[in-house]
């Protein structure tokens, strides 16, 4: 490993399929300084502590003049190309600290009601059945393109209140913005230019949609946010909507794809889920530990922070390597074993602290409906390549394709 730090190796796409041995190496130093001055936190005890430490900020918005790629795909995607106003003063709440974070997030949570989220279960099942139906007669599918990709974006459109006739366009934007996440740190000019255009388009579109929602509010999140009297301004509203689209999309694609991959690698668990669908909740939590959709997040130290025998200095970027902490043997006995019956599974698959995944309840529903339906309906299914090809992104890590051989599709 001469010349390249462990974290550099993690960023190397060649290690995307199985970064876990590297994570085990990293865990030998719970909080490890990298050559570029970032600090990587990879053990569960330290991560669980720092993720709720108020000396750690999410407000890592770089000065536009001195912009550099942060290795933080959503930052790189959202912060760089958005219109100046959003960039300067209205970043989405994932990149903000309290009190702004709490206010914006609180407004979203008020619309993201349990009734509304649970109401999406039926819709999710309907889309799932439709997508699986289209696999009839095929002997080869790509789970990512044929299933994992289209499902979450349709669900999020429905929830946000994007009219059905605009959904295709929304799919396109989501795909473009998601593709832009792939070239981790190495995004070429062309992709960046495309994304700027894409963001401008989606922002314009959303502005129009918000206007319509104000005139004629419907039962959806965008309407609720738009007519909330103590609500957010249009910039925050657009930033929030794009955040919900992008952050809620790619992650769910990964969760479903990683889920199916894991169930095919350990067929006894797929078999068990088919026979006992009631184990889905704990199986999905174990999946979030074992193959989390987001492997790391970047934060900033606001002051010197003593931890694990070292001091993270003020202004140092701090990388929370969630996926490594999830495999920490000090917290999870036999951590490389996929075990849905694992007791006290306090995984960090949805993060933690103030920024705990807003969409977690929706992701759980989507994963549950999708995985149960897939194991029940796909007959004689097997992996045709293992490991599958991965997208280059090291943070939002997931297969680009998951090619499966099928013998048939069972009726609903």
């Amino acid at each position, binding site marked *: 490993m001469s010349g390249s730090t462990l974290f550099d190796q993690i960023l190397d796409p060649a290690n995307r399929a199985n970064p876990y041995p590297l994570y085990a190496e990293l865990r030998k130093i719970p909080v490890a300084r990298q050559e570029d001055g970032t600090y990587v936190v990879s053990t569960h005890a330290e991560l669980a*502590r720092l993720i*709720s*430490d*108020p*000396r*750690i*900020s999410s*407000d890592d918005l770089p000065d536009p003049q001195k912009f550099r790629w942060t290795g933080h795909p959503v930052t790189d995607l959202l912060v760089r190309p958005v219109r100046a106003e959003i960039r300067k003063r209205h970043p989405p709440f994932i990149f903000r*600290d*309290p*009190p702004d974070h*709490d206010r914006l997030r609180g407004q979203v949570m008020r619309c993201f009601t349990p009734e509304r989220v649970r109401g999406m279960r039926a819709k999710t099942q309907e889309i799932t059945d439709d997508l699986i139906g289209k696999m009839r007669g095929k002997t080869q599918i790509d789970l990512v393109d044929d299933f994992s990709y289209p499902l979450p974006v349709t669900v999020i459109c429905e929830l946000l209140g994007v009219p059905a006739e605009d959904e295709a366009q929304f799919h396109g934007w989501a795909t473009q913005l998601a593709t832009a996440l792939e070239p981790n740190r190495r995004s070429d000019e062309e992709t960046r230019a495309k994304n700027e255009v894409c963001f401008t388009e989606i922002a314009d579109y959303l502005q129009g949609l918000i206007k319509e929602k104000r005139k004629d509010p419907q039962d959806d999140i965008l309407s609720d946010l738009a007519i909330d009297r103590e609500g957010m301004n249009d910039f925050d509203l657009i930033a929030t909507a794009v955040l919900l689209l992008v952050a809620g999309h790619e992650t769910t694609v990964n969760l479903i794809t990683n889920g199916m991959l894991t169930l095919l690698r350990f067929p006894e668990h797929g078999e068990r889920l088919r026979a006992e669908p009631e184990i889905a909740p704990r199986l999905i939590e174990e999946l979030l530990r074992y193959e989390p959709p987001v492997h790391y997040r970047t934060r900033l130290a*606001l*002051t010197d922070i003593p931890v694990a025998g070292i001091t993270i200095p*003020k202004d140092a970027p701090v990388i929370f390597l969630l996926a490594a902490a999830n495999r920490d043997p000090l917290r999870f006995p036999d951590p490389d074993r996929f075990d849905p019956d694992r007791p006290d599974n306090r995984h960090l698959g949805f993060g933690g*602290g*103030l920024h705990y995944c807003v969409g977690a309840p929706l992701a759980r529903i989507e994963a549950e409906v999708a995985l149960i339906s897939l194991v029940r309906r796909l007959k004689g299914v097997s992996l045709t390549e293992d490991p599958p090809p991965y997208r280059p992104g090291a943070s939002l890590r997931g297969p680009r394709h998951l090619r499966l051989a099928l013998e048939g599709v069972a009726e609903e």
Partner: protein
Amino acid sequence: MTTPPERIVVVGASLAGLAAAHALRERGFAGRLTLVGAEPHRPYDRPPLSKQVLRGLYSADTTLPCHPELRAEFRFGQPATRLDLAGRVVECEDGSRLPYDRLLIATGTRARPWPNPAEAALAGVFTLRDRDDAERLGAHLRTKLQRVVLVGGGFIGFEVASTCRDLDIPVTLLVRDAVPLAAALGPRLGGLIGEVAREKGVDLRLESEIERMEGAGGRLTAVILKDGERIETDCLVAAIGTLRNVEWLDGSGLEADAGGLRCDAFCRALRADGRVAEGVFAAGDVARWPNPHDDDALVAVEHWGNARAQAETAAANMLAGDASAMRRHDHLPDFWSQQFGLTIKLVGLTEGADALAVVHGSFKERRLVAAFGKGGRTVAAAAIDSARWLPAYKAAIRERAPFPPIENAVDQPRIRVQEP
């Protein structure tokens, strides 16, 4: 190495007793396990009693979950009456004798009764500690009441006041001290909660005490305050503290008094002569133990979290064999209260604190974390609707971090150290 126990008796079948039973089984104890409870109920949870149970939300049955394979023998409605240390036997009210190899004393506390027995006997005068108390008081609150008078400036008083306001019942809350909740939260935070209570319509009277009660036909009709004011009321709740259930230990040779049952750092009960009583342990509200976070000052902590944690420590030590394998009880006291829509959480002990700093949020927002210092060290932190910051402060308290503990943090006002 002492011989492993074959028969364990737990006196006190509430949160601590049940937690100990679970911990013993989880740690592989396969012998005979008996829980003795004075009340006629299975172990139940008390915190909801002053809140959702009184309010009538959900079920009033707060029976604690019990592992289906706990394999414990429960003896309910059967107070222990005597302990024979030499013979290693517990005697119960019905005369039965329970021999033990290890004994856990977790008899807890009871509500301090209203000091005037004639007044306490009036219909409409309540205390609140047990499930039966909550059931009676809850039923009374549902009969269109004129006004509830609450006596006591602690959390139970405030929680019941909050519940009464939720039910739209007029409430007068009488607090003897100049500031409510000061013992736990200090005057500043206590004052803030008092302010919130007033805004929610509680008639809060500070430095106010009852001179006497008036009744008619055996029913409470009014209270006369020390300043002469007469308040008409048909319901009074005396939330004036607790008494430890240690009387049954009289003559046993254990060091027990109103302050609790004295135990050592390993939850082992001590005799009056200061020696360890072999095989006898204590946990929960009744135990008085050396707190490592306060230079081993003796403390009895009447909180839910301590009851569970201490029961688990005691259970581990009961099975540990000799003292070298025992672990010390180093729980950092913590508790929560829900009232007037706010969640108040505290870690550490504020007693003796000489400094306070708001480290997140503000009094104005009613959403804040306040840290407490004592002699330059951080000893406690209170959160109002800010629970997610609390773990960081908990770690600082454990480490006895300098005060104020965490500076240059997110959502932090300019830190101003003030008197608590």
